């Protein structure tokens, strides 16, 4: 039986459908859970917070959602060791909720995905590379060291920011799970000016992962824009689909 994954929808969320499709392509039983039905969240094995502009990013990106009733079961699940994945706006929510890097109290953020250095939203194709040992990220079961994935960085608030001491700690303790890279995996400066060129953060337990770029937007062959666009398999999952396959493997490993 496939693991059940909830994809949360807040008012203003906009990437929920393609996130569900990417999870389903990886063999997961993914379903949307709407802000009007927080009670429905209890029955799931894992949680995904998708991209968008929940609550219009009022006050700060992800800030209002982090306090929303819909987040309570997610926080509980994260504390209990369940897998929680946040993509873009979802990553911002996890940072605001204090779930990543998870080095401080709940809802007292120690790191943030702050406004881009340019002060503007941008949408550009990127690659990200796994920057920690695979064992550090059990949420991506079976992922190989140095894995490079394609994704789209489409956000206005993608710059990892934290006090210097906290950044040092995060780097030292392996909280920066992915960095921006070129296709060959060489680290590159992030488009947003992110500290440590960080593209994703993971918590201590490795069960909560917050990634700013969207792997689900380059997860099917027809979405590829380079030589990996193979005419014979245009409607097949590929590229960023790897990310979700490892997430599914992690869940399968749990169920076993």
């Amino acid at each position: 039986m496939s693991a059940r994954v909830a994809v949360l929808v807040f008012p203003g969320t906009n990437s929920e459908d393609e996130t569900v499709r990417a999870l389903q392509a990886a063999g997961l039983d993914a379903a949307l859970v709407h802000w009007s039905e927080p009670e429905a969240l209890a029955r799931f094995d894992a949680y995904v917070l998708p991209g968008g502009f929940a609550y219009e990013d009022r006050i700060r990106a992800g800030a209002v959602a982090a306090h929303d009733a819909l987040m309570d079961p997610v926080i509980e699940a994260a504390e209990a060791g369940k897998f929680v994945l946040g993509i873009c706006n979802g990553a911002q929510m996890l940072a605001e909720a204090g779930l990543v890097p998870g080095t401080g109290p709940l809802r007292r953020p120690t790191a943030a995905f702050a406004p881009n250095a340019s002060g503007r939203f941008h949408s550009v194709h990127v690659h990200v590379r796994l920057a920690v040992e695979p064992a550090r990220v059990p949420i991506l079961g079976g992922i190989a060291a140095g894995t490079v994935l394609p994704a789209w960085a489409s956000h206005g608030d993608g710059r990892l920011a934290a006090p210097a001491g906290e950044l040092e700690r995060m780097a030292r303790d392996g909280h920066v799970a992915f960095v921006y890279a070129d296709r060959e995996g060489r680290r590159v400066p992030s488009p947003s000016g992110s500290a440590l060129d960080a593209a994703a953060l993971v918590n201590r337990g490795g069960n909560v992962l917050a990634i700013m770029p969207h792997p689900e937007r380059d997860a099917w062959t027809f979405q590829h824009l380079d030589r990996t666009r193979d005419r014979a398999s245009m409607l097949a999952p590929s590229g960023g689909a790897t990310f979700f396959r490892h997430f599914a493997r992690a869940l399968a490993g749990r169920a076993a």
Partner: protein
Amino acid sequence: MTAVLEDAVALGRRAGVALSDDELRRIAERLGRVPTVTELFAFDAQWSEHCSYKSSREHLKKLPTEGPDVLLGVGEDAGIVRLGEWNGETYGIVVAHESHNHPSQVVPFEGAATGIGGIVRDVLCMGAEVIGVADALRFGRLENEHCRYVAQSVVDGIAAYGNAIGVPNVGGDVFVDESFDDNVLVNVVALGLVKAKDVIHSRAPRGSVGWDIVLVGKATDRSGFGGASFSSLTLDEDDADQNKGAVQVPDPFLKNVIMRATYAVFAQLRASNVQAGFKDLGAGGLAGCSAELCAAGGVGAEVELERVPTAQRDLPPEVVAIGETQERLCWIVPPSFTPLLLELYNDVYSLPRVARGACAAVIGKVTETGRYVARHRGETVMDVPLDFLTGGVRYHRAYELPRVAQEGGADRERALALAERSAPATLGERLRAVLAHRDVCSRASIYRRYDGVVRGCTSIPPGYADAGVLVPIPGAPLAVAVGIGGNPRYGTIDPRGAAELAVAEAIGHVAAVGARAIGLTDCLNFGDPTVAEHMGAFVAAVDGLAGAARHFGVPFVSGNVSLYNRSSSGRHVAPSPIVAAIGRIADVAASATMAFKRAGSPIVITAPVQTAFGGSVVGELLGLASATLPDVRVHAFARQCELVARCLERGAIGAAHLVTDGGVLAAIAKMAFAAEPGLGFAIDPAPMAERAGGELGWFAETPAFVVEVFDVEAFARLGAELRVDSYDAGVTIPEPYAVLGDERVPLEELREAWEAPLRDFYGAVRA
């Protein structure tokens, strides 16, 4: 009765409406009395140029609107073309095209944002899922501080709105011309996906007498009062503040939720097999929308204005009825369905929590009287015959067709030779100058502000090819492309020729990604219709669109007219017929980006270059004043479009790019810029040098394609089948250079020339 007529005129003047004295008299005569203030503003909106098309309708009839792929033609808020069949269902692509020019000039961020907001509603209200938007922008000179501010804010507004609602921006274009210095053009296109059987019409359904009229969305406020007539007046500096008040306030966050709630309503309607009428509120506000819904259905309406949710207390009835508060839609549903409708919007999707005062509310009923009756606190404030209100007026405007100078071939060649001699340059130097031109240079700074991939259906986002490509049905290989055409440098010279070229360009753009055009939309942006010269430009352009579309065999399914794009100083915009083409690709595997894919591929042009440099980039750079636009040889060009599609299907070519601004060599350079690092090109200048115009031929803007050939033999065979003669231009090479005969230019140098001009579109980081 004369007293009544003159009282009506006096009332109209006091109220400051845009209706003419004659129109006011006509209204009073039909009503048999002086209209109420509410009725006055209702007619002001409905009879405005924007709503009634009173100056343009007689000419628009010339446009071909029928075709085998048209599921729904002109007449409703959007048109629908057939995408194809999948899983036993016929799918349509809904398309709408509108302008939001005046608001974007006056309050650029809000004006452009609400332009996107409105066009998305036009598609939504047909029962469709909104799948993409595109924008055609015409800015004033960017060296001018105010023009730059307007341009930045327009792009910001479009980005803010489209990104927040989560609809990808998949195409568009940007042109800069001094005629837009005081009158920016912001044209927007929206696309939707709908099953043919699920289309919802913008009219009260048959048998709907007694049904509920339900208003959904933002609480009505004062903003936007005066919008429709505002867009039909020229912009005058002194009215700046009043003009600003007429601009609507966008709320993409609320719209995001309304869209999702509406999709849930669609699902319920379909599950319960219930018919409904659905229309979005735009120009003319609540009265305009509900009146049009009922007029189209041949019924009447009774509306209780105090049932309209308002954000401010004690709004006068005319503001409630005619104001253009954004983010509102209007349903006509059977009373048995109403409770579910209200529940979905108000409870499940909690509109009141999302935005204060937002909700769905029953505001009236459908009647059989054929009249529009609105009451406010017991008093009847509107009681007019619907067909008279919405039927509008028609004018025949006097016009003078533009006179386009005819130049003989010999004269042209002489002028060309003179121009070339006066500014001698190597091919590389000229190419660098052309690539840096305002209408050729890279627009990456602009389209990177737009999310082109949200929803996960984008196969080719902006910047990677001539047209955006979407794969809208998960699991199905069917793809849709949208391309835009419309060049102001051509419009200034010859509106009719420019219109033909706009049609060719739009169709060519979708062809370049392997699509076959199945429908067109247009937005006609012109000056003052009461000035014979401007009206003549409009008429000539419509003739050009009609002729080209007819010969291409692609119908217009939707469109818009924007007149009075003129400031009080007298400056009017370049005649700007802007066309969007919707193309269908049976299998997305057959589409390709414009980037060169490998080294050693022959580079070929699909038509002989014409020595027509009127309106061309290189002509402008050389100070060449020619009035001869390139000729659209429609049938030959149509065969080239088909050739590109077939070649992409069979893998005979790897990339295609339409020749436009900057000509063939600029097109080749851009295909190289898009390619993987390490790839360049080499051309043999000699054959072109032998033709009239010499090396300048490399920059002639002839409708044609540059293609990268993969399979020489297959390409030759397909070319012969379609009677397309191609011309060798060069070959792709495995080094990052542009080899132009004896000249060897590093590609990086050319790329820098191309990227630099708009790199700082936003200037320094904003405070």
